[in-house]
């Protein structure tokens, strides 16, 4: 029974693949390659050694951009949330930067760092910085006062108050913010790679089109992006399952 339930999404995808195959085979004009062509595209990429190379290149950029943003944004956001005063003076600045798409920074990023990894990493860093900062600010501000008062009541030093009350209290919200932001970072890396570098999955898509309209490889790149995005999200989600962290997700 549970096996059937588990197989349901797989069966659904199989049906879609068949429908895609039939539609692609019957099309009069060539609008989309079929699933078999895409599968051969993936095999070709693997054989040429590009599959692993490009996936690793994209993940490398996301990791560095995302991690460096997290290292800066989380402590900064926690501090800003803690000292509400600072938040008030920073808030207009954050609100101005927020609607600027990270992609608008591509020219400036290339101007500063040239075409290459650093420019792409910088874009991912920018894309992750604000969402993570805002998550951390909100997380601190929404800590119930009773927790902080209880911590103070038991005579905690400021450092242990941060470690034993502030940190566990914000963790569930931070994990959600990290998960959403990693999704954003993964979207941005593809766009950044289309312009700022010459490797990675975004580059693969643009390159496959420019070098002879290889739409089978374009769609293969899209499939890879989707699958890896799903894996990243699943990885972040698994953090939410940790028992001592789960308190923030269950309805009381």
């Amino acid at each position, binding site marked *: 029974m549970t096996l059937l339930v588990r197989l349901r999404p797989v069966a659904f995808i199989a049906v879609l693949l068949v429908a895609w195959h039939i539609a692609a085979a019957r099309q009069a004009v060539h609008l989309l390659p079929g699933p078999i062509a895409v599968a051969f595209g993936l095999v070709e990429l693997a054989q040429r050694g590009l599959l692993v190379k490009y996936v690793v290149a994209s993940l490398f950029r996301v990791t560095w951009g995302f991690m460096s943003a997290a290292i800066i944004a989380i402590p900064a956001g926690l501090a800003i949330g803690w000292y509400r005063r600072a938040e008030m003076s920073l808030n207009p600045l954050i609100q101005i930067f927020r609607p600027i798409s990270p992609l608008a920074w591509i020219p400036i990023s290339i101007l500063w760092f040239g075409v290459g990894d650093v420019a792409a990493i910088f874009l991912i860093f920018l894309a992750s910085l604000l969402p993570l900062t805002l998550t951390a600010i909100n997380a601190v501000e929404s800590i*119930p006062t*009773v*927790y902080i*008062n*209880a911590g*103070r*009541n*038991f*005579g*905690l030093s400021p450092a*242990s108050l941060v470690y*034993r*009350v502030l940190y*566990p*209290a914000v*963790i569930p919200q931070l994990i959600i913010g990290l998960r959403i932001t990693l999704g954003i970072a993964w979207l941005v890396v593809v766009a950044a790679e289309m312009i700022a570098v010459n490797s990675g999955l975004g580059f693969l898509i643009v390159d496959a089109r420019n070098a002879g309209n290889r739409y089978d490889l374009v769609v293969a790149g899209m499939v890879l992006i989707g699958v890896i995005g799903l894996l990243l999200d699943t990885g972040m989600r698994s953090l939410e399952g940790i*028992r*001592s*962290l789960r*308190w*923030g997700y*269950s309805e*009381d």
Partner: protein
Amino acid sequence: MAQAFKTKLRAEGISMVFKRDGNSTSVLDNISLDVGDGEFLCLLGPSGCGKSTLLNTMAGFLSPTGGEVRIDGEVVTGPDPRRIFVFQERGVFPWLTVEGNIGFGLFKLSRGERERRIAHYIKLVGLQGFEKAYPQELSGGMKQRLEVARALAVNPDTLYLDEPFGALDSITRLIMRGELLRIWEAERKTIIFVTHDIEEAVQLADRVVVMSARPARIQQIVEIDIPHPRDISSPRYLELRDGIFEQIGLAHKI
């Protein structure tokens, strides 16, 4: 009370004015009060009268705009582990197990001593078998007992309880009152208990401090001279209870 009255806490001329948007609201007006060592005192008043504010100034979470609170002769300037506040909302930490919560304030003790105390207080409040449970797996009454145990574990000499049983159903509330009295008789802490429930105050307290509506003043202090366990249908109980009902200006007929 028959025993000698040794002052634990002295509030002298406490006033509290909150300023907000240019308006100032007087919440506490010149409150002076002595609380005896080991006494069970209830602060009783209508909702929103400022009794929680008074309790928060006694605990050091709020600084009064006038007057001062002294405990054992020392002016209170902030919270202190010697006096623990049990919160109206549930103050147990949801990220810690029952054991973790009770051990929260015991970080200065050795591991063995900490474990001994945790076991002792788990037993005292009847949470055996739930050592590894997280608060969301507990009922409201169990969470409230957990919070009391966490407070008692650091061996404070004063407990502040801010309507601790307000969110519980009436049966659990009655059981919890009995539990609290049992614990109080075993540990002889000074307890300052805020409530808006007249029956609760008369059942629990040595003295009931009846407070007026805002700005809160002390209207009357009623000594409850009935030994525990109290017979809540005895003439003396009814007399004291009815006296407070009248004091607050309520006829108790529905």
